[in-house]
């Protein structure tokens, strides 16, 4: 259990900048998700903390101690791999006991701690099974028990739920959270699944093209994205381009958007992000469409039914916007109908283009 600090970490693969001066402080006991599209550098970052990749420049400390020059086996980390990487030549017990036997732990102590670990992941009674006799979820639990049994200073998870099917993934998310809380270990979790990151983590760091784009609590990141990238990557956001005029953002058709935050200097081009579920969609009927603040006239292009909600694709000028509507027994607005979109001032988020 420890604080992990990355300071200006960079890594270049050939001509590709995999990581570009990334600095993150992982707090003691927190669950931190590194979220980003593939190729964003999140896995490289995790492997660097583990020691599998050598950094070109920057510093990494675990519990205040610099570890850049330490080999993997001396870093006292626990790691869970996407494909679990259970040792196929050993049974469950020996897999979990591996880290202890490497450290020369005695037989009785090993037995007790392996037992504890397997109990923690709720996998008692399968000690003698070989990895190929386990289901995906069970393998996952063994991998977790194996990583935790040595009481590492930090737990690194590389898309650990990626190989599981949806239902099992949700179950394991809950499990993972429970176990992490139980052990109170600093956990760094790599994922490309935004929902997973939002559900599990205390904080999220968004990576794109090797840079840390934004970090904060799931709520912060979702509600207050600072860049168009974050807004689009996390959830469904509609991006509207405009120019700052008299403290408002004026869109190309003259519509004024007001935001709770200062939009920037007069005359600068900006982008506003509006979440699809924050927009109120009303049938405009035959009446003239208002041109108030945060109000857009649009036309329904199509809708997508997703059970609990309905997504409308609506056309405004040349753009297609998304609007999520909760399924409360509404009447579906037909295609081609004129609608009015509106949303509260606080939901206009001015972001970096």
């Amino acid at each position: 259990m420890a604080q992990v600090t990355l300071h200006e970490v960079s890594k270049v693969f050939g001509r590709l900048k995999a990581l570009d001066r990334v600095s993150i402080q992982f707090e003691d006991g927190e669950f931190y998700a590194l979220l980003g599209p593939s190729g964003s550098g999140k896995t490289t970052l995790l492997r660097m903390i583990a020691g599998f990749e050598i950094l070109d420049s920057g510093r990494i400390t675990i519990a205040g101690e610099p570890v850049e020059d330490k080999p993997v086996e001396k870093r006292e980390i626990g790691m869970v791999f996407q494909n679990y990487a259970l040792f196929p030549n050993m049974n469950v017990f020996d897999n979990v006991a591996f880290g202890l036997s490497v450290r020369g732990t005695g037989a009785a102590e090993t037995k007790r701690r392996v037992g504890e670990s397997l109990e923690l992941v709720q996998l008692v009674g399968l000690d003698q099974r070989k990895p190929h006799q386990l289901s995906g979820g069970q393998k996952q639990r063994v991998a977790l028990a194996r990583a935790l049994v040595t009481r590492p200073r930090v737990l690194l998870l590389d898309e650990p739920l990626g190989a599981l099917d949806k239902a099992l993934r949700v179950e394991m998310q809950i499990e993972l959270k429970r176990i992490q809380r139980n052990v109170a270990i600093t956990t760094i979790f790599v994922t490309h699944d935004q929902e997973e990151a939002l559900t599990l983590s205390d904080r999220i760091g968004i990576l794109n093209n090797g840079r840390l784009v934004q970090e904060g609590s799931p709520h912060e990141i979702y509600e207050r994205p600072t860049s168009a990238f974050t807004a689009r990557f996390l959830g469904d956001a509609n991006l509207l381009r405009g120019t700052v005029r008299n403290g408002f953002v004026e869109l190309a058709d003259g519509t004024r958007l007001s935001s709770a935050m200062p939009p920037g200097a007069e005359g600068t081009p900006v982008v506003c992000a509006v979440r699809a579920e924050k927009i109120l969609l009303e049938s405009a009927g035959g009446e003239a469409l208002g041109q108030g603040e945060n109000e857009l006239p649009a036309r329904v292009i199509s809708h997508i039914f997703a059970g609990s909600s309905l997504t409308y694709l609506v056309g405004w000028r040349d753009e297609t916007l998304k609007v999520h509507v909760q399924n409360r027994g509404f009447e579906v607005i037909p295609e081609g109908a004129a609608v009015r979109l509106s949303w509260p001032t606080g939901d206009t988020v001015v972001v970096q283009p």
Partner: protein
Amino acid sequence: MARSAVAGAPGISRSRLTTIMVLTGPAYIWLVVTVLLPLSVMLYFSFLSDVPIGKRVAVLTIENYAAFFEKDFYRILMLRSFRLGAEVTFYCFLFGFPCAYVLAKVIKGRWREALFLLIILPFWSNALVRIFSWTMVLRGNGILERAVNWLIPDFGPLGLMFTYPAIIVGLVHSYIPYMILTCYISLQAIDDHLIEAARSLGAGRFTVLRRLVLPLAFPGILAGAVLIFVPVLGSFMEPRILGGRIGTFIGTIIEDQFTAVFNWPLGAALSFIMLGIVLLILLIGVPAVRRVI
């Protein structure tokens, strides 16, 4: 189930069985004609008193087999051959395994192909030529001796030619590609994440090798060992050319029976005894090995 009962093997339908027979048939027919038939003839010969060629009279007998058990000479030679086989296999592993490891786990891309070519290259030249070229290297005042004396003046003669080590050198050179290739295949099948997982758990490189890589590569090592051990047992060219007077092994004796002494029955009998012992070793060894892995 009724269908598979017809096919005789559970889970295999009739059309599938036809496919299997059509695809495997030619190979089996070929093997029967080229291997089993001549081998059966030799087995028959091994029970004859003389070669049934020309006007010689041959009667059925077991004296060829009895000779092996009556004369210490053959038994000692057989043991000597087994020792040679074991040593050559060991050195092939000792030098071949690290090479296979580097090829499979360290080198990536085009370099790997180039290095592979270097390993397979010796196969493209004639075995006899390869062994004779070794005599150029090993003989008195040969390349190796000169090189050593150039590096360390007044080192004196190496005296390697016509010795047991010379035979080992020649055989290891001939057979090491088998070990490299079989080990390479099983090493490549090991997921790199397994090695990383072991290291993340605190295992140093040696522990990873001992507890993970070697056990997982064991089938490959075993396959390589069998591929090397068996032919080395019967080898005669390398012992004869590189060993000279001391190069007498069961393989050279068998060869003598066929080419020099013209006692095919004895040669055949000794061959089958050797084959029997090898099969016995595999019969005992393989299940024991299975239990380990």
